[in-house]
Every structure is written in C-alpha cells, then in structure tokens.
C-alpha cells in the first residue's frame, strides 16, 4: 500500500478545518501547494500522562489519534470535532468493549491476544471518563 503526499496535505487540512469550521466545510483544492513540505503532518501525538492513557496510545492510538484510519473514517460519521475517541463525551465502557471485540464498520476485531480482557477494561474506563 502506498500514499500520496497531496492526500496527506488534504487529509491534514480536512482534520484541521473540521475542528475549526462546520462539518461540511470543503477543503481548498489547492491546499498543500503552499507548504514547504506537504508530506509532513502524518505524525501523531504519542504522549500520555497516565498509565491508562499510555495503554490507549499503545493499543489504539495508531488508528484513533491524529491521522489514524479510525479518526478519518469516524470524521465522516460523527461530528469531526469528536472524531478522535478521546474527545468523545458519550462512550460507555460496555460499548467500547463490544466495538473492540466484535469490530465495527471497517474496524477489525481486536483479539484477546492483542488486548487482554483486563487491558480492554482499563482502556474502556479511560475512554468512558468523558461520559456525562
């Protein structure tokens, strides 16, 4: 599989505009031509401030932080401002566990070898903390 740097520029812009503007804001088709290095912007924040957050980053961050596959697809289905799971105010722990084990949409199922039941519980509680 490969990627196109204009894709990165456009996706980065989609992510940026999504946060700043309405969900249906269209990206500027010429975006990317003005930046020095259009391919930059794939890096995600891999930092954490707690063991629970560190576990989320290790097991889920690759898809559910910036520029992740999950974030990009979820931005089409929910308010892009909360496309990253950590920004969601409404994620019940049971739902997180169900989604991870059963898969959801394009998200493949996560096996117990990859994330144990105990680890998944910790991650689900971490994501549920934003629940009102």
């Amino acid at each position, binding site marked *: *599989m*490969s*990627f*196109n*740097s*204009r*894709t*990165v520029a*456009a*996706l980065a812009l*989609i992510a940026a505009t999504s946060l700043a503007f309405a969900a249906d804001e269209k*990206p500027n*088709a*010429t975006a*990317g*031509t003005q930046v*020095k*290095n*259009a*391919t*930059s*912007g*794939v*890096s995600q924040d*891999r930092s954490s401030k707690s063991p629970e957050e560190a576990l989320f980053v*290790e097991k889920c*961050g*690759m*898809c559910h932080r910036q*520029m*992740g*596959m*999950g974030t*990009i*697809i979820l931005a*089409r289905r929910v308010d892009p401002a909360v496309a990253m799971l950590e920004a969601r105010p409404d994620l019940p722990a049971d739902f997180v566990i169900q989604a991870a*084990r*059963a*898969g959801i*949409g*394009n998200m*493949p*199922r*996560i*096996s*117990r*070898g*990859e994330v*144990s039941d105990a680890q998944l519980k910790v991650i689900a509680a971490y994501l549920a903390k934003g629940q009102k």
Partner: protein
Amino acid sequence: MSDLSAALKAFANAIGAENVFSSEQDKIDYSDHYSPDEKKHMPGAAVAPANVEQVQAIVRIANQYKVPLWPISRGKNFGYGGAAPVLKDSVVLDLSRMKKIELDEENGTVLLEPGVGFFDLYDYIQARKLPYWLSVPGNSWGSVAGNALDRGVGYTPYGDHCMQICGLEVVLPTGEIVRTGMGAMGGASTWQLYRNGYGPGWDQMFVQSNFGVVTKLGLWLMPEPEALLGIDFEFDKPEDLGWAIDTIMPLRREGIIRQSPSMGNWLRSASVMTTRDQWTKDRGPLDENVVTAIRRRFNIGWWSVQVRCYGPLEIAEASLRILQKAFNGKPVLAMKPVRWVKGDAPEGSPFSGVPLSFPLANANWHGGRGGHIGYSPVLPPKGNLALDQFRRTYALYQKYGMDYHASFAMGERSLTNVNQVIFDRDNQDMMRRVDAFFHDLVKDAKAHGYGEYRTHIEYMDLVASTYDYGGGALRKLNERVKDALDPKGIIAPGKSGIWPAANRKGTRS
C-alpha cells in the same frame, strides 16, 4: 486424527489457561475481518505464548496431538488474510505478546520479537532520541518482523524489508531452536552485523514459508540522513505511466534514487479522502467525468509518484538535480519540490519512517463494511510493459465492475504492480464477482510470465500453481523440505501453497 480439545488442555497447562482462546468470539476475532468469506478460513482456537520456551512447548504439544498451528506476529496482514490461517480450524499461534526490543545504538541494528509493531519501535526510538529512521509500510499497525518475513515494503532506501533481515532465531517444527547466520555460534558478537554466516545462508528459508516459527529477527536500521529532498509528480493521462517509468528507472538502477518510487492512480489517493457515493450513485464502472471531478476536487493526477533523495545535503542536492534534468521538457502535470534538512521541524511522513494507518481508510471507499485483497504481480521495469499491464488489468476491472486501484513500485530491477481489489462486503452482487475477477487477474499475469510476490490466504494455492517450471519443481522441493523438517505437518499447512504430506491429496488441481 488431530485432537484439538486434548491439545487445548495441554496448551493451558503449558502457558496458562488465560492465554488460550477458544470461545466462538475468539475464533471470530482471529478470522480475517476484510475477507470475502471469513468462515472458510476460521481458526479453531488461538494461543498466545510469552516467550520462546512457551513457543517450544506449544510446538511440541501440537506435534503430540497433530494440531496444525498458524503462526502470526501481530495478525495485521490485511489484504492477505489478517490473522487467519489457510487451513480452517488451525490454531493461531499469536506471538503479539512477545515484544522485546534490543537495539544496537552504535551499529544501527535491532533484534526484535514478533510482537513489536512499527509504532512500538518508533516510540522506542523517539523516546531515546536515537538517530535512526524506520521504513514503514502503508499499514504500520502490524509487526516489524512479520512484515519483513512476508516481504513487505516501505518508502525509504531500506524499503525492501526482507533485504534488511540479518539473523533469525527460529523454533523448528519439532521444537528445537536454531539461530541463523553468525548467531549459529554460541556467544556470537556479529549476529546482527554480518548476514552471510558460514555455509548455506538460511534466513530466506524462513521467509513466506512454513518451515519454522521465527521468534527473533535481526534488522538493519537506516541512519538518519542530513537531508531528504524530492519531488511530488502528478500526471494527467493514463498513458503517462509508460514514459514516466522509463524516466525514473535508469536512476533507480544507477542508485541515484535509492528508495522505490510508487506510481499510483488517482483512486489510491482519493479512496482515503472520500467515498464513492459522494460522487455517483451509479454502481457500474466509474465514468471518466466522475474521475475528473474527483481529481479536480483533490488536485491529483491520474497518476502520481513521489520520488525522494536521501543523504548528506550535497549528495541529495546533486541527486535531485539529476532527477529534475531527467524530467526536463517532459509533459508533467505538476511537479512540487519537497525539502527537509536536519535542524528543520520533524519531516513527519513515512518517507522519514513515521508510521501510519490512514491508507487503510480506503476500505471505506464503497461505504458499508469494506474489505480488500491484494494482487501484486512483478514485471520487468519497462514502461511499455507497465502500460500494457495497466490496460489489460483495467479492462478486467471494468469487466467485473470493480474500481481500478493500483500502483507500480519501482524496484532496482523490477516493477511490482500492487493492486488493491476494494469491495463492499455488504454488497452481495459485488462479492460474487470478486473470486472470478481474481482468478482472471492471476491467469492474465501468468500468460505474460508475471508471478505474484505475495498473496491472500485464499489464493496461495492458485499463485503457487503458476510457479510451474519443471512440472512444479520448486513446489516439490519445498514439500520435500517441509516433510523433512515438519514430519507431522503442524506449522502453517498451505502457507505459500506448501502442504504437508498428509494434506497434499486433493489440494492439487
């Protein structure tokens, strides 16, 4: 006869019941989420050892009860089967808990266990601020070792991952541990430094094979260069593929360009940014007007390729000038220079080894529950042959009503035509066409003397059957080796079309 339930009890005794997974949900979790038919390759259970001793114990138990094992590193081989085995009811040997990293900072080598993913290794290097860049594949969720062992590729000069392997630790099918290369010597100090070893070199024997379970893999890492310069090219017409490849290939052969530029069509770019139904409700072949509208919106060529030069600044600049000169006066739609020099903000792309997962978003192109399988024949590096390949396969995509998603990766002496057959698993009509389409693609490649470099578990026999010189002499050799090393036939039956004696009947057409 195999005895799965007795084996599962023995596995639980050996590695703890909490690491043996045999519920219905577990079996589903280890099957291939993106495949057309998950049930066909559903495993019987999974076991997740913590160390090499437990791998040995599992292998011995599997021999005792004649239970086939399907080793996976992290099981993210999407497009090729994910975690699922060729042979239904095999027990997945999940190595994802084995995550040791031993990095030699001075020499730029690393010894990895199979559970280490690209993001894990990236985080490890970043945390220590080490001056090494990874080479990552488009889906960097998976295992570094597993990807190299399946001949995966990346974007940097170290992008032929299999070629960076230096020394393996392998549990043989009968449970003994062997170390290849210099690691064959007790107390070896050059295991990750010198590839050849003494006598026959057997690292490659364990690549895309079922001759053992790799538990440690040595890999060379690229020292961070002073500069990363390049050009992003966009091309307007399908026909531009031919001359563009003929322009780049001489530089590739000479080593002016040391990474493998991959020339991909508009859908490779668009399929992660948008979905088909945004543009047309027509489920038939895509109208060229639709293609044009998508290209305009995202400012992409019919084809695009990113070419990069690495090294000390003066060398990278000289390489870039040669690249620019090669394209002088040629009808490129757009050329955009990119430049990173040490001291700049992080380059931030896979060209500097930043892992990524967003290319997998192409699974959502059709909406619905998407999936894909990879079709990747290898061609001679000639523009006219690539163009001909494009035209023939494009016609097959049209015939089967599938959307063309392909790229041509330029190796030093070859082109790999990576196709992703993207489908919507909720569309029964489409799913019925996928199998016949794939068979036609393989048949077409074979008719031109092209073989696939890697394939999905469903098609391992089909692809193996195209390697038919001398009445399938290579497969016969592989199976003689298989029988000698794995008399009970327990490691990954059917991998790369290699079957143990007991399973061989009825698998051949």
